[in-house]
């Protein structure tokens, strides 16, 4: 019985831990898509954030690491915004290029600075901070409220973005831009400025996600450590039906999928090839998209190149 409880706590704890970077990235993507911009360059922003965080945390400190991660994400997102929002280039092609660019850039910088040999570079990390009182709750306490501080940021941002998106003028403007840009223009909202803001915000969030991977989890930088999270984030937004709270729930589901191997290993199922566990989030993304795409309704102007109808 106590074994099952420990297993349950461990599983939930791991789910929340794995869900945190996914939730950060997909909350950003949610805002961006609500403004009509689908950014598959998110993957690139995550890896840039991870490297930025590694460098700054080693040089200055963990707190600066998170700031630098967000900043690196904003920088690469600014390039994406220049092409898609200001030059109205194809969002998917630009996003692909940004991801390739980020992989090359981080790889070059990392190998030039720290050497090809991959001397195990270790960065300071932030440990878990228990929330007084709440962390004492059985099962849920230890898993939900003994996490790194960034996880609590996610808890706060979900409701906060929901409120902003659905209860403020600026949020209404953002959604208008994503649904009917012409209507937004008529109402005096600038689609370009709104989309730029949304893309930069998503970049910052993806950068934070990268910083989380390094500073709250791995404690080191590895090339390609984003391993598809930026793409999974886009599926999470579809599953969460473009609603911040839905996105949080969907992130937790994907976090749980990533933690399945902890359960199976403690149950002694070592026969199952580990590649299957690595593939589970990807398989799940396909399944989720199959179920959610037909029913979900994306913002009407999502991916649309021109702001005005011809």
């Amino acid at each position, binding site marked *: 019985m106590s074994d099952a409880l420990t297993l349950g706590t461990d599983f939930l704890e791991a789910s929340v831990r794995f869900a945190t970077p996914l939730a950060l990235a997909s909350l950003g993507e949610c805002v961006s898509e609500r403004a009509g911009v689908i950014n598959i360059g998110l993957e690139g922003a995550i890896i840039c954030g991870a490297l930025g965080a590694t460098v700054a945390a080693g040089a200055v400190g963990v707190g600066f690491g998170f700031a630098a991660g967000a900043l690196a994400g904003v920088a690469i997102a600014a390039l994406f915004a220049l092409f898609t929002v200001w030059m109205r280039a194809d969002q998917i092609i630009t996003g692909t290029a940004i991801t390739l660019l980020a992989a090359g850039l981080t790889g070059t910088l990392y190998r030039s600075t720290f050497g090809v040999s991959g001397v195990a570079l270790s960065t300071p990390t932030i440990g878990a901070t228990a929330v007084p009182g709440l962390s004492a709750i059985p099962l849920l306490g230890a898993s939900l409220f003994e996490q790194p501080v960034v996880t609590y940021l996610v808890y706060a941002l979900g409701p906060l973005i929901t409120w902003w998106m659905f209860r403020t003028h600026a949020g209404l403007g953002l959604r208008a831009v994503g649904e009917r840009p012409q209507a937004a223009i008529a109402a005096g909202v600038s689609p370009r400025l709104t989309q730029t803001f949304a893309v930069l915000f998503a970049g910052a969030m993806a950068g934070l996600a990268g910083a989380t991977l390094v500073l709250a989890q791995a404690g080191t930088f590895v090339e390609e450590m984003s391993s598809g999270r930026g793409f999974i984030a886009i599926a999470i937004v579809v599953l969460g039906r473009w609603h911040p709270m839905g996105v949080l729930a969907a992130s937790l589901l994907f976090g749980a999928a990533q933690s399945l191997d902890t359960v199976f290993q403690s149950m002694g199922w070592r026969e199952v090839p580990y590649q299957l566990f*690595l593939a589970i989030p990807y398989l799940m993304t396909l399944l989720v998209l199959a179920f959610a795409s037909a029913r979900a309704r994306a913002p009407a102007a999502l991916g649309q190149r021109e702001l005005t109808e011809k």
Partner: protein
Amino acid sequence: MIRVVVQTLVLLAVALVTLVLLLLATGHAPGPALSAMASGAFGSSYALLSATPVRAIPLALAGLAVAIAFRAGILNVGAEGQLLVGATAAACVAALAMASPGLPALLVIVAMLAAGTLAGGLWAGIAAWLRARFGVLEVISTIMLNLIAHELVGYLVRGPLQEPTRTNPQSSTLVEALHLPVLVEGSRLHAGLLLAIGLAVLAWWWLRNTASGFRLRAVGGNASAAASAGRVNVPRVVAGAFLTSGALAGVAGAVQYSGVTFAMYENFSPGYGYKAIAVALLARLNPLGVLVAALLFGALEAGANAMERDAGVPNVVVSVVEAALILLVVAADRWRARTGNSTRE
């Protein structure tokens, strides 16, 4: 035509400047690095006959895959996964053939290429079906299939496909009789080159001169207009183009396996499927242009490896150049569209 060539040269020059800036920023002397790059790409008969063209072959075949899909308006970014399963299928056929010796070599080679074609097509077929049946964005589904294919290869080369001694995570080495024929004695240039050229010419002719090629371009240009005005069966054209695209990427993998690596392992592809997107875009989705762009990228890749070996510059730097090229092509197109000079080629 001349304008496109001039424009491409300008884009290349800008990409090269980007490279120099990046070299300076990361503390590498540009002079020795660039000369190492040039000699690695063109500086010897080995570079000219083996290093550069051999790298261009998978890029050309996968580049054709991307070009066909993009022409039909399908954003297939899954060439990487389709190439991997294509190579895996060829390796499976090879394993069976090597277990029962005495089969005619030509038959086995054809079977390997056919298996690669089929597997690539089927792998793309998953994404095509998800798009047709559920409206799943193919960008995401094909990327997921890339990642799944990578894990699948990782499992197979440590499991059923692993070489008999079970020491290395790779398949058994293909016996020499089953290699693709070498075209020039003493080089590594294999018959895959002829296949790439043949398929590129075929694709170019097909898109230009046949009714189904025209339908594909019409769907890619404006699907709803093609459906209403031309009474084109859009889902059918899309499915056909998607499968063809996957088949081309699959054969790229089979060719790479039977012509270059002779074994299957985890890092079989250094991102050929992603670089193929840059190749196709640089070629403006023209199949013949793909051949030229692939040769250029083959030179870049060969040069980057020489640069790493001789000048200590990480070879991933080439991804930056490739990404810069995609962005430059996109920017040039937008600029032309804005200045009103937007005659479509």
